[in-house]
């Protein structure tokens, strides 16, 4: 989550919302959250677990590159 928030500061085109999964069961169901942390980017790319910064960046770029 830290990476997402720092990216939000780095670019005005990035926003980050941290959602407490247990307190928002409808959102958790909608995003099929089975474990946390889970990251969903632009409703296009998602992954579970902490990942290294290059992988996180790759996911962000993939989310905006996908047609």
């Amino acid at each position, binding site marked *: 989550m830290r990476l997402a*928030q720092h990216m939000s500061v*780095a670019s005005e085109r990035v926003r980050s919302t941290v959602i407490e999964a247990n307190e928002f069961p409808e959102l958790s169901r909608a995003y099929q959250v089975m474990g946390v942390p889970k990251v969903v980017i632009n409703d296009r790319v998602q992954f579970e677990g902490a990942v290294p910064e290059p992988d996180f960046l790759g996911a962000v770029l993939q989310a905006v590159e996908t047609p």
Partner: protein
Amino acid sequence: MPILNPRDQAAVRKEFERIAGPVKLVVFSQSLAAPELCQQNEQLVREVAELSDQITVEILNLAIDRERAEAYGIDQVPAIVVEGNRDWGIRFYGVPLGYEFSNLIDSIIVASTGEPVLSEETLASTSRCSRPRPDRTVPGPCAWHSTCRWRRSECARL
């Protein structure tokens, strides 16, 4: 009863020595929707804000302060907006306790400095195309940076 014990407070105060400017925590609550969580969230935010004179708190009601909520893109409660000298787009839904608490503290610090701690590659990829394209009609690479990896058509999407 306080949420943060003296040891937590001391640790957060130490972290807050890195705060470089004013930060506003905008809290959205709605007692009818989630009374206990909203109350706990407000208490947590107030306790955190007491640990630095750079932090201010504004409590809003999702049902009453609809325009503000819409402007922030908030549609759930409890919610927290972390603002520095501008709105960086940092939001929390739910009470940021446990693992999320350290993220809240870190987000307050980075919102105050405006200086993300990221690798050069990440900064380059997320920052280069952050400004609006100067001329939408001219094809070719992003005009802001000759080394930008984005084509102009992609640039505006990040």
